[in-house]
């Protein structure tokens, strides 16, 4: 009998082009996703050395980080425009398919990959973006790379990679009502810290993960990097297959059924081992809110903001002190008492149709608090269209949300969607670093449901109680 293997080992073995002592493996890359911010210098490097893109057919480009979410036609910032134009020229010159800013396939790179069926189980997927881990939800080995590596993949369709250590994040039991995939991944990072996954590829397993839809699984895998892991994945199952069937870039008909069979065979074997295992009890997870300046600084919505004395190490106490100061919070204050000025529903973590549906269900028939400015930025054109067909845009607009075009938007504020200094935002994105949403901006990461409830209440509220009663 063969030794049982985990999915990471299986996918790795299938992609090794060359192995030799004292060197990392030369790994073949099946799909290279490209966007405007981390690619211009890579294309320039190719030009300078007279090199070509080896496999334009395995390369797919979109524009997302800089794009305006209001009035698509006008890019006010000339430098943003230059970056966007440069990607268009590069794709033209090197023969790469591009979903440009007016293309119906356009959207955030990690939203459109799965949507189009480009993302498939067992593929090695890279992109010059750390949230490439999102695609791991399908059982793909997907990780972010820097611009030099982007150039390397463009030129050779390979990367030198040392085989990663594997870590099983086991989620036991089921999530409670009103507790989401976002709360789970925040709780995992809160429990194990922002670098527990460094050097590892994570596989998420357990009942709660199996019960999740593909969109929820993407939310979980998306934030693997916030725990330090370059990649996080989930073994494919029937949910994966059902999501992919009929998508544009997957095999069709009989060929799909064959592919599905080989995909399912990638799932981690019974009895396979990992380099490490951590466990969390799903039933204990409550809706989370981050209070500080990294995603590990999160607490249940029912809890109070921590104080520096709670940490043991001096460096940690310092970090908490600095974070409280930056965030303008008092140690010990209930997080639910914190008033917010902005709500952002969007980003590659939480801007898919199911996210918007869940947020809309919370706000239906209610009004955004007068002191709050709230926006919804769908993850792609097609999410936007689908939401409009269901009338979700009306629900949001009637409640007082702005309904925007797709893009990264306020997740990192490279376009004009920026939070002013000192103001506070409940955001469904993935990073609450200092200045992430604008210099001096204060970001609190939450689920779409929690963001929606906060928009109505004007402060954080426990969405589990919120849906049951009227809040003023």
């Amino acid at each position, binding site marked *: 009998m063969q030794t049982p293997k985990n999915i990471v080992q299986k996918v790795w073995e299938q992609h090794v082009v060359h192995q030799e002592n004292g060197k990392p493996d030369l790994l073949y890359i099946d799909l290279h996703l490209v966007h405007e911010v981390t690619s211009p*210098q890579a294309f320039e490097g190719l030009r300078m050395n007279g090199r070509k893109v080896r496999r334009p057919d395995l390369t797919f480009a979109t524009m997302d980080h800089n794009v305006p979410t209001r009035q698509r036609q006008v890019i006010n910032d000339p430098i943003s425009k230059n970056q966007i134009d440069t990607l268009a020229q590069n794709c033209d010159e090197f023969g790469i398919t591009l979903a440009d800013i007016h293309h119906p396939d356009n959207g955030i790179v990690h939203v459109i990959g799965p949507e189009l069926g480009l993302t498939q189980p067992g593929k090695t997927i890279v992109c010059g973006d750390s949230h490439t881990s999102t695609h791991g939800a399908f059982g793909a080995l997907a990780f972010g790379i*820097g611009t030099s590596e982007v150039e390397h993949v463009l030129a050779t369709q390979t990367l030198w990679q040392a085989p990663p250590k594997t870590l099983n994040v086991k989620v036991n039991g089921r999530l409670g009502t009103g507790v989401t995939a976002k709360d789970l991944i925040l709780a995992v990072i809160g429990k194990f810290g922002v*670098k527990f996954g460094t050097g590892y590829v994570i596989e998420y397993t357990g009942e709660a993960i199996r019960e999740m839809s593909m969109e929820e699984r993407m939310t979980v895998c998306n934030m693997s990097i916030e725990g330090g892991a370059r990649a996080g994945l989930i073994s494919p199952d029937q949910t994966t297959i059902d999501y992919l069937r009929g998508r544009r870039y997957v095999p069709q008909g009989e060929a799909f059924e064959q592919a599905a069979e080989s995909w399912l065979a990638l799932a981690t074997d019974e009895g396979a081992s990992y380099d490490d295992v951590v466990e969390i009890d799903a039933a204990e997870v409550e809706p989370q809110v981050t209070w500080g300046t990294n995603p590990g600084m999160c607490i249940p919505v029912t809890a109070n903001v921590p104080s520096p004395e709670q940490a043991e190490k001096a460096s940690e106490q310092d970090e908490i002190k600095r974070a409280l100061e930056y965030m303008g919070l008092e140690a010990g204050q209930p997080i639910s008492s914190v008033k917010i000025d902005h709500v952002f529903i969007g980003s590659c973590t939480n801007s898919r149709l199911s996210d918007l549906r869940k947020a809309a269900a919370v706000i239906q028939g209610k009004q955004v608090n007068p002191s709050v400015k709230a926006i919804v930025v769908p993850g792609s054109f097609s999410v936007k269209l689908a939401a409009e067909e269901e009338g979700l845009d009306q629900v949001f607009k009637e409640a007082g949300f702005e309904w925007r075009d797709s893009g990264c938007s306020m997740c990192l504020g*490279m376009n004009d969607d920026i939070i002013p200094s000192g103001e506070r935002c409940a955001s469904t994105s993935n990073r609450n670093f*200092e200045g992430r949403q604008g210099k001096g901006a204060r970001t609190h990461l939450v689920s779409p449901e929690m963001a929606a409830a906060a928009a109505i209440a004007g402060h954080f509220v426990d969405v589990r109680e919120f849906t049951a009663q009227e809040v003023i």
Partner: protein
Amino acid sequence: MEALRIHQGLVCPLNRTNIDTDQIIPKQFLKRIERSGFGQFLFYNWRFDDEGNPSPDFPLNAPKYKGASILVAGENFGCGSSREHAPWAIQDFGFKVIIAPSYADIFKNNCVKNGILAIQATEEQVQTIIKKADTEGYSLTVNLEEQMVSDSEGFQFTFDITPYPKEMLLNGWDEIGVTLTYEDKIKQYELAR
């Protein structure tokens, strides 16, 4: 890429943990399409106040650390986004070596590709250096071949580095050029699928 064998330089301490790439280079400066010129934006939100004046308390602004080429920082340095603009900014500002207890994976990779040596030291070694760097003119010698860091006062330690990045740095290789010599293998792999 420039080769790096032995480097001697002034040390600048930055005693903070979890320094993310959004701090190293804030997003408003990611829009350039060149590789050069990012040094002026390094740690921008920490180096400058709201009016754009240098923040006097920030180490990189202190006259005694002017011209430093070795950056010393707390654990999990370079976490967050994959932006290679972060090492570009660090390098363009004049740093050639970083010393910290730990790094984010992607950042560390990006450093190697740009000829920056990111040394993993112990928490204790880092704290020792940070204390010593209080003295004006404190410098370290880094010998990559021997994997050794030392100062003129007898303080020294060895560090680990895997063979491949070490070779890359020592030789200043163009990695793509190297990989292209494996073209036959890559073709074979593609045909066999």
